[in-house]
């Protein structure tokens, strides 16, 4: 057994390689010697070697992290004014809108922030599907991402119930009732979820408790997601591993500045929604207080759940509909093994390159079907689109990997970048310094 003297960590006789560089003052060095957060951040954020060739699709990860922080900050402050009681909740949200200073801003940021969060995460996931980021050795990184998506879905659903409008109430009713499809114990599960015979005050209370806590669980899983990411580093548009130092650049300043630029563009879009179209993505019925005796004639979930809702409605059998709907998300867990192609990036896969776009197209069709009443042509279109969704993952992905002939991969990232880019002067003076 290795014996270490108390107070003298192994290898501390010489300066650890991770100590912050000479640019730091004595205080920083004093702290870092005892609590190595500064060298940790330097290692993981500043010096962190990143592929030279990341494009704008790689902006969405950091954007998702930022919007998560925005959701938590606005949420914690909203919680100071919100009352989780069936007879007070609706009015407390209206009070936030009318009387609380900047309450309207906090709520509109939180409300539209949820939509932005899903938009960003869906794009982030499409990036992964297109560039094969889930393949060896990043399977767990992808799986943790799917876990985050599931937690987000739960959180957003629970939050949507809190204002206790008509859509809140009936969304809660329909979603919790899905568990009644479970054989034998289904009804007991639903009663357990409600804490009563219908969605009611006990339901609202527990949903609030969970809505408060789940975002912090998300933060923890995001932490694991980043640990997994930094183990092997980012994938890149070419989908080949880095071969040497010439294929990497430090994260700071190159990608910090690129992420900042992306953030600025995103904040403009976000601001347009918050200030000019705050209720565009919502549903007017949610400004009617919950009424357990009347279902609105046309209930729809938030846009980010529409494709899954369409899958649910496409199946004329209760249990199977619920199974397929959850299956549509859970199937993502299997993607690293469903895709049999050894090539990561769709750039070098002549068929998958096009096929990969059919999935978001299919999701948009499903979303459109989900937004419309379940009758006439919508039923048929919904069923075809549902079929395609599963066909894509279960048949196309495994099959294409076997029959498609990939284009030759470049020998290295550096070689490909130099071959593609404009002629570079031997070394720009700026970069010499």
């Amino acid at each position, binding site marked *: 057994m290795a014996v270490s003297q108390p107070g003298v960590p192994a290898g501390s006789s010489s300066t650890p390689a991770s100590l912050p560089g000479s640019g730091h003052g004595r205080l920083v060095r004093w702290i870092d010697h005892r609590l190595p957060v500064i060298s940790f951040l330097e290692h993981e954020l500043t010096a962190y070697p990143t592929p030279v060739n990341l494009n704008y699709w790689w902006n969405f990860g950091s954007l998702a992290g930022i919007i998560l922080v925005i959701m938590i900050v606005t949420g914690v402050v909203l919680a100071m004014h919100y009352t989780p009681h069936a007879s007070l909740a609706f009015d407390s949200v209206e009070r936030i809108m009318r009387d609380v200073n900047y309450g309207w801003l906090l709520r509109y940021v939180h409300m539209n922030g949820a939509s932005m969060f899903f938009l960003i995460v869906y794009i982030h996931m499409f990036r992964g599907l297109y560039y094969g980021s889930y393949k060896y050795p990043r399977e767990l990184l992808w799986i943790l991402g799917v876990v985050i998506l599931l937690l987000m879905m739960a959180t957003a659903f629970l939050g949507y119930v809190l204002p206790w409008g008509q859509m809140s109430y009936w969304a809660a009713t329909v979603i919790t009732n899905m568990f009644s499809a479970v054989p034998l114990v289904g009804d007991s599960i639903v*009663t357990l979820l409600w*804490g009563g015979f219908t969605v009611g005050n006990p339901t609202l209370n527990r949903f609030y408790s969970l809505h408060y806590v789940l975002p912090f669980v998300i933060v923890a899983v995001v932490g694991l997601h980043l640990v997994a990411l930094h183990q092997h580093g980012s994938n890149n548009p070419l989908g080949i591993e880095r071969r040497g130092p010439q294929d990497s650049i430090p994260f700071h300043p190159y990608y910090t500045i690129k992420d900042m630029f992306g953030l600025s563009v995103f904040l403009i879009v976000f601001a347009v929604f918050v200030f000019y179209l705050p209720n565009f993505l919502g549903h007017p019925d949610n400004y009617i207080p919950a009424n*357990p005796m009347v*279902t609105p004639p046309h209930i729809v979930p938030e846009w980010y759940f529409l494709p899954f809702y369409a899958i649910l409605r496409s199946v*004329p059998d*209760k249990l199977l509909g619920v199974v397929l709907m959850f299956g549509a998300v859970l199937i993502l867990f299997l993607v690293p093994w469903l895709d049999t192609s050894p090539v990561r990036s769709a750039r070098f896969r002549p068929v998958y390159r096009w096929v990969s776009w059919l999935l978001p197209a299919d999701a948009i069709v499903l979303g459109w079907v989900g937004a419309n009443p379940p009758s006439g042509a919508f039923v048929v279109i919904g069923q075809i689109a549902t079929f395609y969704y599963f066909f894509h993952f279960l048949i196309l992905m495994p099959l294409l990997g076997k029959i498609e002939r990939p284009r030759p991969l470049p020998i290295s990232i550096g070689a490909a970048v130099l071959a593609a880019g404009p002629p570079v002067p031997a070394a720009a003076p700026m970069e010499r310094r």
Partner: protein
Amino acid sequence: MTDLAQSQVRVEHGGGTRRDFLILSAGALGAVGAAISVWPFIDSMNPARDTLALSTTEVDLTPIQVGQRLTVAWRGKPVFIDRRTPDEIKAAQDVDVSSLRDPQKDSDRVKKPEWLVVVGVCTHLGCIPLGQKPGDDRGSFGGWFCPCHGSVYDTSARIRQGPAPTNLPVPPYDFTADTAIKIG
């Protein structure tokens, strides 16, 4: 140190050591204990005693005309009361029961043929079907139509089309007078 080392010496009966046995049994006991202590947390989410206290609802049926429908609340749920017309009763009775998804005779669903009393919660995912108000869409069987995912119920509130698996349930109720019922 030597005591510890001696107790780790393999005792060759049954292939396991005394330590293996202790670790396994202690681990199993701990796991069972942890699992049991989860129960109070889960059960606390079930309906509390005050919520459970059974409530009853009494309804005076006199103001309801033939062909009229009334909604009353029972345990926070809507209950549909339908004073059916002779045509509706006949339609409900004439159905070939074996052709139904949830086979039930109309006579098993009513106490008096004129009065149908059912819980007005769609058995698919819990929406309130349309059909109680005069202008409502009643679906192609003249009963109720659920707008959420298109379930259609007949004049006995039995499921005929759409994703709902079972008929609208009949709540426990009794006629306390010729034109009065007590639900619950």
